[in-house]
């Protein structure tokens, strides 16, 4: 009964969306804001990856919010799990040697890959979020492979905080120096398509990479260890 009602209701919503989609033809010419970004993005921000320039510069404030949300989730998760009573020590079954060695071998490589991704965020696809996630997956690998190893929580927290603060401080420097706008790209744009270009974007993306990585690691750590 409930299923039928839900299907009917969803069908009505579907109908509404179909009417709505008539005005959004698939694959049609792009819109004015997006056009502006593609046309002026390189000059204004110095990044070749327009998505990055949008994410970090035109809509950098959103990204600040987004980083905050991840931070929030990590903290919230910690708060939710913090009051949980632990049932003694978790039984750790040591992994096999092959697995361990493999993990140890892979771990720095994955870290390097993640770092590459977020350092080159303004040039190639990828950036702080993707890189951060990859770094987190490296730590996940450590958890799965070398189970007795633990993450230094304090270091994790400090990384997290400092990375967040770097973002904010960069924004605030923009407020004081560069044209008095928060998050304005006050640093020299450099030569397009080189590593040291596009002003504050790489710095912020690196900060985001660290932040996302440490936060996702923190989330996994909390879920694995605290519950």
């Amino acid at each position, binding site marked *: 009964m*409930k299923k039928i*009602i*839900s299907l009917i*209701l969803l069908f*009505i*919503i579907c109908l*509404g969306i179909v*009417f709505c989609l008539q005005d959004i033809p698939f694959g049609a010419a792009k819109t004015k804001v997006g056009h502006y970004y593609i046309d002026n993005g390189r000059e204004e921000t110095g990044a070749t990856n327009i998505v990055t320039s949008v994410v970090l510069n035109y809509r950098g404030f959103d990204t600040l919010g987004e980083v905050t949300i991840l931070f929030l989730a990590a903290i919230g998760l910690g708060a939710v799990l913090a009051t949980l009573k632990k049932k003694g020590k978790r039984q750790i079954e040591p992994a096999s040697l092959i697995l361990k060695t493999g993990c140890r071998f892979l771990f720095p490589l994955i870290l390097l890959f993640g770092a590459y991704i977020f350092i080159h965020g303004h040039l190639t696809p990828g950036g702080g979020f993707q890189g951060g996630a990859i770094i987190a997956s490296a730590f996940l690998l450590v958890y799965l492979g070398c189970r007795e190893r633990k993450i230094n929580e304090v270091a994790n927290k400090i990384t997290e905080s400092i990375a967040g603060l770097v973002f904010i401080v960069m924004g605030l420097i923009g407020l004081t120096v560069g044209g008095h706008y928060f998050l304005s790209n006050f640093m020299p744009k450099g030569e397009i398509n080189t590593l040291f270009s596009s002003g504050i974007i790489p710095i912020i993306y690196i900060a985001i990479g660290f932040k996302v990585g440490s936060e996702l690691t923190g989330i996994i750590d909390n879920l694995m260890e605290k519950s």
Partner: protein
Amino acid sequence: MSLELLLIIAFSGAFLTYLSGKISSQLRDGVAVLISLGLVAIVSFLYNVQTETVFYQGFFGISLILRMNSLAWFFAIAIVSFTALCIIYSLSYMKDCERSNYYYFMMLLINASMLTIVLAGDLVTFFVAWEIMSWSTFLLISYNRNGALQAGIKYIVLSLIGSMCMLVGILSIYTSFGTVNIADVANHLTPSSVGYKLFLLIIFSITFGIKNAIMPLHTWLPDAYAESPSPFSAVLSGMLTRMGVFGFLLIMYVIVGMKTTLHLGRGFLSFNTILCWLGAITIVIPTFIAMLQNDAKKLLAWHGIGQGGYMIVGIAFGTSLGAAGGIFHTLNHATYIVLLFLSVGAIEYSTNGLRDLNSLGGLFKKMPIAFFGGLLGISGLIGVPLTNGFVSKWLIYKTLILGNAPFLAFAALLGTWGTVLSVYKFLHNLFLGQLPEEHKEIKKAPLTMQIPIVILSFTIILFGILPGLPLKVINSIIVAAGFQALDINIWGVTSETGTLNMLNIFAAIAVFGAIFWGIFKVARKSTPVDQYDNYAAGAAVPKNKYHYTVEYYAPFYRMGKPFLKDIFDMFYNRIAEAIGSICDSVRKIYTGYVGSYVMYIVLFIASLIFVQLTWSIF
């Protein structure tokens, strides 16, 4: 003396009393008495002052006004003096009670808010003060715990309904005319439509009807009176309830205006006739219900409702005599009902909280002052000549008879008969007859409780013999309202169709009284017997088993019980229960299951989209 200062003293006095109570209770008592007496003094100095001041403009830019005129003064002096008496009375009555600081604070706050109501020159001030009065009253009604809680809720709910009606009325005036100044509103209202005036009258009548406990809206009153501390019951019945009368005067004769009010509708279906009849019903039924009560305070409470009916009949009838009678009756009623409540309070005090008419009796010798207070009080209530009640009732009767309203007059008379019967029960079961064994040794009522009783008793006689004193002020009130002036002298009222002269009556009664007293003295054959000297069929009755105040009107009780139920109260209770169960079922929509909550969300979207796609109404 400016009116702002008066109110500042009144309100800050309340707070001061509370704070001083934190230091010591003696200091608090002193401050409370000083403040209340000070207010009496200030208000009495304001006699015959006509003034109007804007005291505040910060409330949405509305000029809040205080004004003094004869109507305001008449009520103000009554409020402050009765409150002062009750405060003095409370000094010993409330001595060992918990939260006495709170009690005094509330008493003085209510006093101040009532004062503000009568002094208000605009409707917003009036409303604000009215609300402060309502909630502070609620807080004090609930003071006695237990049964009082239910009474308090009943009171505040009805009060809230009333004040919400009034708020709508006031704001509709404000939005229509852009002013809330009572005088301006009256001017603006003159040319507006009859329907609007009727709307205002009805909506305000609900508010004031609830406060004045007109018959279908009276249900809060008996419980509230009975459950409050006695001095507060006195204030409640004497003045606070009569704010309703003040309100009726204000809306009928000041705001809407006499000429309009008396010509709304035709014949029986006119506003004031209906109000008169409601008043008449309010006189008759509660008076007879009162007869069935076994709780002394409840009995008085039902009389309070009944007497309110007299006032409404007098005021609503709309002649000079009637209005004067109604207003005068308000004052008189306050005098004797306060007196009666204080007397009952004295008994309560002495017998440790007993007020059950079945188990008391014979307290005459133990508490003579309370007895005389009670006696004079019920005489006033009945309207025995030489008491003030006589004068006002005479005015009302005369109005009804002259105004060709025999049925109303009959109702009023019926009310008086009922009153006689039931207050006799009151007096008898408390003071006369046999003293129950356990009350042989009772606490003596202290002086501070007796002084107010004595003062009030004296006032009853004073206004009974010299009705001209208050009638002079009342005359100026009714003249201000547009009525013809009465011909007043110090002894009474003169008119073409009959003259009331208390001097003659006083003289006649004095002479006859002297004669009868002489006859009794000379030809006395009875012998005084002991209070316990009772016989039944020739055999001595065991004192502790027989008590003849029990079920005093038993036959009548059996006869009247089925008919004299408070059907309105039952009706309202039924409604309240129904609302409660509806409320209970409404909250069942929050089932606790998330799926259904998400379903609500989807349903909301789907139905809106469906509506728009089908009818495109947005």
